[in-house]
């Protein structure tokens, strides 16, 4: 039988609406709908988020006219919003085939009558790019909750163990280590000397060069000062924030939940040098709103601070923030919309702020910050949301109020996580992670599953398609070859890496994979060009501190990073990832001090390129673990790339292209990690291009390496 393709499109109006309203489209009987599915194209191994998109026409039938509300008629004030990619799904014979998004691009009108609509169906992964767009990390929702007062106690706690959320969502000393203060200096030069007097400090560049050693009589007087440290956030929390921000994104699979990944941190280093309060006055998040939601206004206070408006933007005829206080002191109200500051005004006494006077249309996430030069008590803060159901002459307007109780502003420097995020697009961040760990993403059961390529392939089944193969014509070609594949971090900016490279004539952390073992004449031996996989992340360089004055080279238990340029001046760097290794210092032997704390440092969060146990490394090639001195061979290449890349260069590797007639069962059940068995040989799927009307499919298969 011919396949029966069904296309459904969500007519709820917004992909953000939780429950889609799917309507089926009529299709032309002659329009072939073909989709190409691929997971990691051997032709372009650095490209991530590969999936399909296909443009085709559907008739301007009565059913489709209703769905697309006569798109060609621009006088209509309501109806299908062609500006938005709407959720869509494909079924074959009633069996789910693909989920994704559909955009309406044009309509063809002949002799005054609509004839067809052109639509493009995007796979769910392609749409990841569209959903996230150019949003930056600072706009992620839910990171506010990790804000905390930047003071001695919190930094000390974050340095020796970590900070995390308690049951009341307050940031406290915690072994969860959501936020840590790693042993990284951004200005001062730290060293350890038993012979120099404790507290020795010499002017050095803009800062000082200081001996971290103290003794029992100088506890708390010398050593690391809290304002020399900057925090880092667990990368897993950023992933969760991405999921919270974009309701249609939910990452599954084991990678992001693995314990190794839980050790990965992102340095919150927005500016060079020490931490800066980014504004003249102290500001703090208003987080006393009661969590509630309202279907009539499509609004929700998703946590104690974040108001989400998910209806149609122009229907929010007004959204007002009312602030009431008996204080006569000036205060500043800051409103953040999707990470962008849209309002900052110095106010006094009671005020109502009308968003309609600030934005022409309103939706997304809103948070409020208060700033002042003194502590202030607010008797009330209140969001009032007004949503218009129909924009006819007699519109129905629904309203909802979200309020706080008494809200106290304390005049203290709050480390604001979103605002202290390094400038980086969320998509670039994800892309960097995917390239770093050779991750692959695919859509399954409503969830974007993320796995390493090796794990992904190990999860597939074997399908014998020998009987579905059209023996008529088969093309066999070699895989695309590269003379070199360069795995690189961002251009190094820090003294440690630059110095290391100069001394060793090396590229610390990077790897140049050459196709001959001796690296000679590869371009002659192998056809092909160079290929670069370049990460947007700075390579961290960490150094175990030695006792400078010991008679023999003696390493202490302490290690640190130093973010200065090659002249040892403060410097801006690319965003940086590192593993955190909680480390113990034997204070009987090594007496490191922390100013303000009458204790020796006995534990600290050590930034490292190797994780705890050295089972993973953040170097592309094998490098010496700076703390243990042992070579860590569990490099990114060895763990994540080696199997795949070496297979591409195998003498037996072929890419085979042939036509198959796939049954409904195969088409709806196959996964891109399945092995395809042909005449007794196994292949991996490089791509499948399927005609969804006939099942005729062109498969590009690559010889299997496992």
């Amino acid at each position, binding site marked *: 039988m011919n396949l029966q393709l069904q296309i459904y499109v969500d007519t709820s109006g917004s992909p953000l609406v939780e429950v889609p309203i799917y309507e089926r489209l009529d299709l032309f009987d002659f329009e072939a709908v073909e989709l190409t599915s691929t997971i990691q194209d051997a032709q372009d191994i650095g490209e991530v988020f590969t999936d399909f998109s296909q443009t085709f026409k559907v008739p301007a039938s*009565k059913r489709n006219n209703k769905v697309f509300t006569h798109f060609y*008629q621009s006088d209509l004030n309501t109806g299908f919003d062609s500006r938005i990619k709407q959720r869509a799904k494909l079924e074959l014979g009633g069996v789910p085939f693909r989920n994704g998004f559909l955009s309406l691009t044009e309509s063809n009108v002949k002799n005054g009558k609509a004839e067809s609509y052109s639509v493009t169906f995007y796979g769910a992964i392609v749409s990841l790019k569209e959903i996230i767009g150019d949003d930056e990390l600072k706009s992620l929702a839910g990171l506010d909750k990790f804000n905390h007062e930047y003071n001695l106690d919190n930094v000390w706690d974050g340095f020796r163990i970590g900070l995390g959320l308690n049951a009341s969502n307050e940031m406290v000393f915690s072994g969860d280590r959501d936020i840590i203060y790693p042993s990284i200096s951004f200005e001062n030069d730290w060293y350890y000397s038993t012979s120099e007097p404790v507290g020795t400090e010499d002017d050095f560049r803009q800062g000082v060069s200081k001996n971290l050693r103290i003794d029992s009589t100088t506890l708390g007087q010398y050593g690391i000062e809290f304002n020399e440290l900057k925090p880092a956030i667990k990368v897993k929390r950023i992933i969760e924030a991405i999921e919270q921000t974009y309701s249609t994104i939910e990452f599954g699979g084991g990678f992001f939940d693995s314990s190794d990944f839980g050790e990965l941190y992102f340095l919150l280093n927005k500016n060079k040098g020490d931490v800066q309060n980014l504004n003249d006055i102290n500001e703090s998040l208003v987080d006393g709103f009661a969590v509630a939601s309202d279907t009539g206004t499509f609004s929700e206070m998703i946590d104690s601070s974040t108001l989400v408006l998910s209806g149609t933007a122009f229907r929010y005829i007004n959204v007002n923030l009312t602030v009431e206080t008996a204080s006569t002191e000036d205060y500043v109200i800051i409103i953040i919309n999707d990470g962008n500051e849209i309002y900052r005004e110095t106010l006094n006494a009671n005020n109502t702020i009308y968003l309609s006077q600030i934005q022409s249309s309103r939706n997304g996430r809103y948070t409020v910050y208060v700033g002042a030069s003194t502590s202030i008590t607010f008797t009330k803060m209140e969001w009032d949301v007004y949503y218009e159901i129909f924009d006819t*002459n007699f519109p129905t307007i629904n309203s909802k109020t979200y309020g706080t109780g008494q809200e106290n502003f304390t005049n203290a420097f709050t480390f604001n996580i979103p605002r202290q995020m390094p400038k980086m697009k969320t998509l670039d961040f994800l892309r960097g992670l995917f390239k770093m760990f050779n991750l692959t993403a695919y859509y399954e059961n409503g969830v974007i599953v993320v796995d390493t390529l090796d794990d992904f392939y190990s999860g597939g089944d074997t399908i014998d398609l020998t009987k579905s193969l*059209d023996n*008529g014509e088969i093309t066999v070609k070699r895989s695309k070859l590269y003379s070199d594949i360069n795995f690189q971090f961002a251009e190094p900016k820090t003294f440690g890496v630059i110095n290391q490279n100069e001394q060793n004539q090396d590229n610390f952390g990077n790897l140049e994979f050459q196709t001959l073992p001796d690296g000679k004449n590869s371009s002659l031996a192998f056809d092909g060009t160079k290929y670069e996989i370049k990460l947007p992340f700075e390579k961290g360089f960490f150094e175990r501190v030695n006792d400078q004055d010991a008679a023999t080279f003696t390493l202490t238990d302490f290690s640190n990073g130093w973010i200065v340029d090659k002249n040892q001046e403060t410097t801006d760097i690319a965003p940086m990832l590192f593993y955190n290794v909680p480390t113990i210092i034997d204070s009987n032997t090594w007496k490191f001090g922390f100013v303000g704390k009458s204790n020796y440092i006995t534990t600290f969060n050590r930034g490292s390129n190797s994780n705890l146990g050295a089972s993973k490394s953040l170097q592309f090639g094998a490098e010496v673990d700076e703390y243990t001195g042992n070579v860590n061979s569990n490099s990114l290449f060895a763990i994540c790339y080696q199997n795949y890349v070496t297979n591409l260069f195998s003498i037996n590797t072929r890419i085979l292209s042939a036509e198959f007639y796939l049954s409904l069962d195969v088409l709806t059940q196959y996964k891109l990690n399945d092995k395809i068995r042909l005449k007794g040989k196994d292949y991996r799927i490089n791509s499948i291009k399927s005609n969804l009307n006939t099942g005729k499919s062109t498969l590009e298969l690559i010889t299997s390496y496992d």
Partner: protein
Amino acid sequence: MALIVARSPHFITAPTLDSGATLTLDIGFYDSIGDFITLKTYAFTINTEYGLDISPFVSDYFQNDIKVLIVKTTIDGEISGVPVQSIVNEYVATDGYGYYEDGYNYDASTTIQDKKLYGGCNDNIQVYADGIASIPLFLPSNVNGSVTINYKNSGVVVDSNNLILGGVYDYLDAPAVGSESIVTDALGNQIDTSRVSVESFILTQTRILNISKNVSTLDIDSIEIISQFTNYSIRVDADGGTVESLQCANDIAGGVSDSTTHSISVEYICECKYTPYKVSFINKIGVLEDLWFFKKSMGSLSVDRSEFNQFTLDSYKNGILSNHSYKNFNVNGREKLTLNTGFVPDNFRENFRQLMLSESVYVYKDSLKLPVNVSDSSIEYKTHVNDKLVNYTIEFDYAYDKINNLV
């Protein structure tokens, strides 16, 4: 109340209003208790110079269970900046169409009333001698009155049906339909004509009625339709008002419009050799109308298939020679039906014009009403002068695959 034939443009205009005037379009129908059921509401900014063609929006809502729609338009706007009262109108709409010659915003309701509500396209009908005479009626306006259908032989009434119409919208009241007659609505649902109580049928779908009568034993040669409406209701309707179903109003206004008739000649066709086929199609005013094909019919099947070169080495090496190296798959087919009318009068050209232009055609076969599409893309109109005896041959495609593959 005007009739919109939604396959042709129907413009709503507001030429006197300032730009920015809005049009609210409500599409729906009246249910059995007279409530308006809204299927869709659209809001437009109306082009005050050329107006807005609402037909495409209306047309979407004709479906299997809706053949007649009620369309309400509300125009709001200003004149020189001063808001004016909303302009509200109500229309009946069908999936019919107008010809170019019919002009701008063609309204067929007057023509239909002139034909005493007869909804067919030809005043000559052919009836299979063993078959049923079907008279389609269409009630475009909200009128009170009655329809009498007289079945006549040589000028003598041999049987009759009487339908009483009235109410706010179309309703049948205390019907007195003659024997062996079946009254169906636009959906083909039989209306219970045994009711004698005063009960309103104000369903929009009863604006289209079909009176079917077995005339095989009556030997009739014509059918006469007499529609009578109260002066009161006609006047109100002509003024664009809403007719209230008040007996006292009728009593006060009194009188009937006229008692002229519309006659349809009936020709019995006996066919002994071939199996006649009845074809029904939605005609120009949106009414289902019958057309008989009495003569030679031919069926055919065309098949689509794909073929591929199948791997059979595994069975061949074991001595099995029966496996296909070239394997067919995705085999399915569509049937065609070619029908001949037999001899028809010259004026049947209008029937075939409307058949060719119809988007909804059915053929009755083995007691099943099956969907077909006319596959001929042209037709030559025939006349006795040019062609002596006029026969039309029409080719139909069955509108489905022979192997059931609906999901």
